[in-house]
């Protein structure tokens, strides 16, 4: 699967199928810090992603003065 990280726009190719919770653990990301999006839909930690998917992982934590 192709993973696109926002806002950095870095990309990663990963093979196999993953529960989103396992994918986040693999990427060392905490569930409350990112939105996981596929085909313009938000995914839950129990959804499955696999080789055919393009997944956007969007950081939600912003910094500096609001």
């Amino acid at each position: 699967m192709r993973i696109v990280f926002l806002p950095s726009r870095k990309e990663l190719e990963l093979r196999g199928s993953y529960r989103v919770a396992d994918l986040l653990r693999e990427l060392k990301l905490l569930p409350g810090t990112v939105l996981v999006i596929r085909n313009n839909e938000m995914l839950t930690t129990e959804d499955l992603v696999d080789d055919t998917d393009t997944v956007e992982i969007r950081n939600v934590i912003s910094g500096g003065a609001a």
Partner: protein
Amino acid sequence: MRTSRPGPKPRCKRCRAPAVVQLHSHHTAFCRDCFLFYFQRQVQRAIDSEHMFTREEPVLVAVSGGKDSLALWDVLQLLGYRTTGLYLNLGIGEYSTLSRAKVEAFARERNLPLLQVDFAAEGHAIPDVVALTRRPACSACGTAKRHHFDRVALEHGFPVVATGHNLDDEAARLLGNVLRWDMNYLARQSPVLMPSHEKFARKVKPLFRLSEYETAAYAFLRKIDYVVDECPNAAGASQLLYKDVLQRLEAEMPGTKQSFVLEFYRRARRLLFQEALGAPTTCSRCGLPSHRPICRFCSLLDEVTSKRTSAPPTSHTSPV
């Protein structure tokens, strides 16, 4: 190659439909519509419990083009409040060009009034201020923003300014203040900052009950086109470090951020209330209230002007 099986699909707490938003801190999940209803209710509860403003009062909403401020403006409009947006163009290169375009598009699509202040046109674009004064960017930026929030609110007759500070922002601020035991800041940290002078507007944070994840989910589900990019000056900000620490605690002990902030407001804030600093006088330059003869913003401008005039003719300010 890894193969895992999907877990049981979480169900919406309210209507039992398949959920799309999981809120681990509340041990719950929602479908799209029920999450949007939950979000609106949390904002209404914040406004009512802290007596932030009424539907008769015009509310000036400080919008940056980011997810929090646009989500705030969107939900206040849905809840029927009289809002006007205020966009401060910080003059930070492409980041400001992009965020201004997002804010203008948001206001146009919803037919909402928008006021703007252009820092570069006023002679204090943030990159220039930082280059000339060596001040930390977020500090100079915060000083300029607070000044313009108050100035525009006063000039246009807004009794209240709403900002998009969320639960994570408040928790990070609180953690920083506690780590330093900064009693002055602790005593003043509140979802509503009452004006210490008649020329000041009331400052309110209607999103203080909602996490950064919830505002991002709201913005996504409402199809709000916001700036995903970070402010170039935010990298390395201590606030991000505090947020990282709090996220780890939250992952192990869901609900930590909410109890840390809400219980501070409920129980500790009252104990810390200190005598006011004394009513401010008036800045001799801009006429806004200030606890010094010349306010922080005008002092910053003086420094920029003096450094600019004394800078060698060939000097130039490198864009960010």
